């Protein structure tokens, strides 16, 4: 029996998939449709200080017809506060088994925050998310990522809210900082019961080469936007792992709701494996609609079945132990590339990248010896890329550029066969550090 339900900082949700605060969570009608489709929860689009939006608000980073990333200039909710609160109340009543969390943001004014929190609490919401991450428009007014980027402000504002609410308090972190663990720590110290990350990454998605305008062009002008979508997933994964690995987070068991470029169940599982307790989606819904939840649920369930997991907790954070400081990586582990001549299609991409950007260890050899049967015509087919194993450093660049499935494989070498390059001996990092400076550089602190 597969159990997908979770409990996140005391909030119950029938599955770990939540809608992130954003355009899809602007109204009760949208949440109703999302819950009907199957989403486990939603973070209501940030309410609070009054704003005026612009038109248009989006630009995309595309590779031909495929959107890699979305850049937005949309501000927090521009609907009347009272209407938002009324709809939040209605939707929570109608969907008691779903998580309804309200994202809030106010100017740097304690009374304003306290007043807003009280109103949200009265709406019956399950929790509060503090939007400390919006990178456009709001920072200029002293809020959004302006607060999220400063650990002191982050701690202070969190504590203001904490003092007036008993609801679970989630602080949403901005990635636009040098060290996210500093702001994560400040949020927890300020009283956050949970963390969510990441908010959008400040961005400019492009420049029009004909008009010289920056995109999106709002009457000829633009501004720094927030970047989201598939392209930011690797950044979000890394920040999630960093926060999930923090001693303070682990000791206090601070749950993390992760987001940033999630569009499939596979992406979701990766975040859960790196320590997230729930995941949030926004851009993927903006590009495809609520219907994607069916595929997310199906994929997750079938993967859990195949792996023998019965609940999310069974595998949450399972991959964190595979991250170590660089100097703890095994220097004697050695792989070399091997090219399958039967699968090679002679594009020679491996050859050219190895020659120009790696370690010059792929030769073009006469294929006759490797390929007894003459393939179809063309003299190049007689040429084959072949790895010189004694010079291959196992960087794997060739494998990544190869367009053929499993044509290039990285073969793990046995330890005793490692002394291939004359004059090079495999040593531990400690020994390498010692040799360079006369004292141990690495491996002291851990």
């Amino acid at each position: 029996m597969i159990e997908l339900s979770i409990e996140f900082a005391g909030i119950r949700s029938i599955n770990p998939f939540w809608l992130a605060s954003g355009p899809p969570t602007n109204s009760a009608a949208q949440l109703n449709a999302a819950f009907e489709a199957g989403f486990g929860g939603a973070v209501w689009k940030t309410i609070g200080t009054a704003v005026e939006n612009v038109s248009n608000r989006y630009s995309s980073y595309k590779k031909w017809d495929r959107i890699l990333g979305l850049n937005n200039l949309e501000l927090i909710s521009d609907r009347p506060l009272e209407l938002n609160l009324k709809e939040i109340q209605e939707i929570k009543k109608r969907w008691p088994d779903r998580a309804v969390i309200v994202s809030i943001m106010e100017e740097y004014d304690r009374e304003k925050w306290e007043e807003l929190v009280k109103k949200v609490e009265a709406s019956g919401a399950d929790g509060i998310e503090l939007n400390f991450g919006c990178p456009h428009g709001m920072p200029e007014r002293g809020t959004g990522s302006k607060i999220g980027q400063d650990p002191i402000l982050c701690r202070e504002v969190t504590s203001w809210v904490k003092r007036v609410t008993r609801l679970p308090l989630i602080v949403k972190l901005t990635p636009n900082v040098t060290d996210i663990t500093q702001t994560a720590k400040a949020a927890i110290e300020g009283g956050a019961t949970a963390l969510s990350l990441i908010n959008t990454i400040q961005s400019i998605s492009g420049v029009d080469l004909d008009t010289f305008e920056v995109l999106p062009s709002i009457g000829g002008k633009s501004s720094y936007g927030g970047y989201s979508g598939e392209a930011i997933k690797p950044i979000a994964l890394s920040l999630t792992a960093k926060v999930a690995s923090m001693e303070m987070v682990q000791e206090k068991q601070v749950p993390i709701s992760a987001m940033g470029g999630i569009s499939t169940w596979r992406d979701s599982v990766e975040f859960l494996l790196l320590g997230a307790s729930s995941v949030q989606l926004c851009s993927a819904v903006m590009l495809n609609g609520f219907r994607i939840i069916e595929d997310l649920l199906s994929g997750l369930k079938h993967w859990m079945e195949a792996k023998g997991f019965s609940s999310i907790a069974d595998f949450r954070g399972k991959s964190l132990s595979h991250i170590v400081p660089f100097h703890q990586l095994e220097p004697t582990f050695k792989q070399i590339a091997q090219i399958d001549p039967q699968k090679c299609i002679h594009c020679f991409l491996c050859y050219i990248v190895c020659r120009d950007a790696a370690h010059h260890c792929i030769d073009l050899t006469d294929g006759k010896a490797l390929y007894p049967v003459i393939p179809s015509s063309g003299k190049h087919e007689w040429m084959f890329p072949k790895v010189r194993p004694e010079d291959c450093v196992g960087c794997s660049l060739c494998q990544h550029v190869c367009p053929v499935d499993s044509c290039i494989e990285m073969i793990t070498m046995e330890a005793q066969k490692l002394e291939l390059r004359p004059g090079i001996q495999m040593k531990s990092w400690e020994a390498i550090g010692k040799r360079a400076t006369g004292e141990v550089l690495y491996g002291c602190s851990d």
Partner: protein
Amino acid sequence: MEFLKESLPPLSLSEAIGEASRCLYCWNPPCVTACPTGIEIPKFVKRIETGDFRGAAEVILKANFLGGTCGRVCPVEELCEGACVLTKLKKPSVSIGRLQRFAIDHFWAKQKLPSQWHIQIQKKKKVAIVGSGPAGLSCAATLAQLGIEAVIFEKNRLPGGLSTYVIPSFREPIEVSLKEVEEVKKLGVPIHTEKELGKDFSLEELRTAYDAVFLAIGLGKSPQLQIPGEAYFLDSLEFLSRAKLEPWSLPNANNIVIIGLGNTAIDCALVAKKIAREKVSILYRKRLEESRAYPKEIEKVLKEAVPIQFLTMVKEAVVKENKLVGLKCQRLNPHSILDSVGKKEQTGIEFFLPAELVIRASGQQKPLWITTMAIELDNGFIKVNEKYETSLPKVYAGGDCIRKKGMFSTVHAVEDGKKAAFSLAASFS
């Protein structure tokens, strides 16, 4: 008129960029090896992908001045696209021909050749080029870019050779061919039309008046079948050129029969089908596997539902009241052909095939008059060495008139012209 339009629509901007993005950007790629003119295909394709259409066209034109024609008429399945590594992954190859057409059309429509391509012609050496088809134009364009003076003599009213007169409009509209002719002229090459070698001037005169001669005279009409009533047949080249330039002059016919199954015969069948929408059929003396037509082309006629009668020969034309009404045909015994090449026993049944228009498309003949020139021939074609030199000093030749075997397509003629120009330039220095 519908049949005068190109059958493949041009790629839109987004289609072109999308298609270009499929290119793997192979290093030392087989598509370039397969291109007779050696166009750096991945380079121009990448430039299309990034919106540098001018840069893309420059890559093409540098290697092949008639890139607009070749992008349309090249048998790409046999050449670049057939070699594309994507086919080995069971994926469709990059549409190189259509991308080339996109880049060149875009270029000629809006832009001019870069100024450094217009070399000051030095009036030291002068080359006479006979024939303004692809080989002649390519030779002239290359010579002009090397700063060597060249003059083209063309026997027809319009320049461009087969591209202007014979290649069906659905493959290449006449404007494309004439635009390329214009661009060659802009490089500083005069073209004298309605000047025919052997009639208006002799080879000897050219040799005296010029420092070198390049013969790009192509081939002649289909050989006679030597059967009664043949005078009522239309030659394939004449049919195609009338269909392209003066379609109204073609006779009305309910039944059109094409004799032969080469690439020209297929063009005739496809054009006939487009013009007449009547019963079109092909008669072929041999078997399918003996046809020299590209498989992709045979597929096209089959898709157009043109019946092909194999192992069938025409015995005579049936004429009533001075009008062609049909053909007397006979099936051939397949075994007798297999057993004794050249001794085809006509043992099959005889039958009558109604036809008001019969097109003879059984190969192109070598122009008879070249035998009267004191130039060495090889099996009826002009004999040249690897430098495109003929047996006569200072006389070079290229294009269909030297192509005694293998594939011959426009692109091969372009390469001949280009290489011959380099040989000529080398001989002058």
